């Protein structure tokens, strides 16, 4: 069971997320995370979906996805070098007196404190999934009151030759 990051270019129209999500369910695959937003072309959205499965399952899934009419293209980013980023907002149980200490913890992660309240503060961090996981471990001792993560956004790295669309 390998982790795969799949980029799906879709028509920006009502119901397209349902179609994609339904197909994963129908074919017995779980969506670990999904991000959707506008793409470089008006009228099209790009979904970045992370999922797990063996090569056979992922190939099947991609072929089935391509059959959806509202899907323009499907690319398995994991096949080639790619950049992946996630954004997380973490509300930590801490008072302003602990601000300096927390700043020193988050600084190596290039995270920032974006809100400070009397009994809690919010840390914003971007990076790959593993980096965010690592920061969360460090913050656990303070008590994590609330956590929200975007899921992975990803893009193939610029290739020397033309990009391969698997």
């Amino acid at each position, binding site marked *: 069971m390998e982790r795969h990051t799949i980029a799906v270019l879709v028509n920006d129209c009502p119901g397209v997320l349902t179609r994609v999500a339904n197909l994963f369910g129908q074919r017995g695959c779980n969506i670990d995370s999904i991000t959707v937003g506008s793409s470089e072309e008006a009228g099209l959205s790009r979904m970045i979906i992370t999922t797990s499965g063996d090569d056979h399952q992922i190939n099947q899934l991609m*072929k089935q996805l391509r059959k959806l*009419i509202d899907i323009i293209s499907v690319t398995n980013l994991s096949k080639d070098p790619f950049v992946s980023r996630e954004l997380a907002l973490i509300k930590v149980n801490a008072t302003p007196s602990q601000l300096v200490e927390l700043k020193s913890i988050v600084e190596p992660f290039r995270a920032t404190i974006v809100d400070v309240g009397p009994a809690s503060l919010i840390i914003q961090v971007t990076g790959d999934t593993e980096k965010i996981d690592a920061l969360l471990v460090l913050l656990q001792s303070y008590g994590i009151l609330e956590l929200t993560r975007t899921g992975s956004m990803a893009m193939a790295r610029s290739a020397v030759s033309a990009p391969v669309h698997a």
Partner: protein
Amino acid sequence: MILEIAELDGKHGMPNLGFGEELSGSETLLRSLILEGVEYVFGYPGGAVLPIYDSLYSSMLKHVLSRHEQGAIHAADGYARATGKAGVVIATSGPGATNLVTGIATAQMDSVPLVCITGNVFQSLIGTDAFQEANITGITIPITKHNYFVRDVRDLPRIIKEAFYIATTGRPGPVLIDIPKDVSNAKAPFYYPQSVEIRGYQDSLIPSDDDVERFIGAIQHAKRPVIMAGGGIISAGAHQELLEFAEKTRIPVINTFMGLGGFPGVHELALGMPGMHGSYTANHALLEADCVIALGARFDDRITMGRTKEFAPKARKVHVDIDPAELGKNVSTAVMVAGDVKSTLQKALPLAQACDTADWLKQLDAWKQAYPYTYQKGAELKPQEVIEMLFETTQGEAIVTTDVGQHQMWVAQYYKFKHARSLISSGGLGTMGFGFPAAIGAKVAHPDRTVIAVVGDGGFQMTNQELAIVNQYNIPVKVVILNNQCLGMVRQWQETFYDSRYSQIDLTCSPDFVKLAEAYGVKGMRATTSEEAKAVWAEALAYDGPVVIDFRVANMENVWPMVAPGDTLDQMVMGDE
């Protein structure tokens, strides 16, 4: 409209189309259907489709009024399977739309082109749980090739054009168009697009020369090759190419259930159906073959028994399918060709040479002689006997539709189909109640051909209300009920796998089918012995009108041979004895 359909076929300049004329959504719909070459629609009115039915009142479209939306969609499906054209069904919102669901799933599983039109409540009411509101586009996402919710009347012609295109090209399938009532009422100048452009959609796949060379290369030195021809042969209209290819290469042909009729059942190279209730010869051909050439077949679990790794263990597998997702899905194959099977065979034919199959064919013939389908005749009328009689009296020329169960398998075994698009049956979904309404659609499409619905006493009762329409429109289908007074296939499985604990299979309190037919104004007949069966069937065949024949057949008969799920094809149980 007074124009004949021939003048409106979209190829001859289309005079007087009224382009630019202000039309309502419902008028737009019907005019678009006519421009798509639709002659018949099957349907059932209701609140949300009142504007459509009002427009239909003065339309040249012929509408067949079913007695249940499931009947309408199976009829549209039968029409589509018999012709290759898209079948069209109209239903109202809410329950009308949800009553289509079984029919849509049936068409999806067997790749049948359908365009399903549903009404919906006014857009101002959508999402309010309004009377007869159902989210039918949401409900049918998993069982349609695509579906549309129409928000603006100006989108309607494009959507209809796309729907027919999507339904009938590539791997065919059902497309649903949900039209809220305000869109049916709204007016817009009518224009019909000449072409469609759907980005990323693969409408047809012509294999590359390299693919065709690999295809030929994989089979030319085979000593024990076998073609496994599926429903794709029929969808693609590739039956003639298949015949030429098999005869030229001297490769014998197995037809999957969905492929029956795609190769003449009585041909010397025909081995019959493989799988759970397949012939000894077909299954042993797969076991011994050194090369299996699957053409438009998808290695489903009724053929592989779920033992995909052990399937055709000695064979190099070659697979041609228009749907790339089918390649390698169930069985891993050495050569995969993503392509339309007709164009693949057309390109392969000039390169094909006769294989050295003389010894192999001799072996297969010996099996055919030694292990035909068999049953014991006796005092009781046997269901297999009835199907043999249907075959002999029609010489394989009839269109035969079926429900699902024992009778379906006996049709597959004993009716040797001569032509493509002659067996019309729910192979994938296995829908009871399909056969009779599908026969109505097939007969509407082919009034000159004998159309026989072979049904069980169970399945017939799921849609027998459609007797009303064969009477109303005088659609002379012949309904053959193999009445064993029980759910035969369930009974067979309970006998085999559940120690004969017969649970809820007793149908002895079914209606008198002769009287039921007569109550609908349809001729009803009955036969309980072989002699009666012959006489009654001769009369039914000659009768120029719809007829229901209640064949009272032996109730403990089993379908043989049988391979149990999870077993391999060499573990065939040949019969009771």
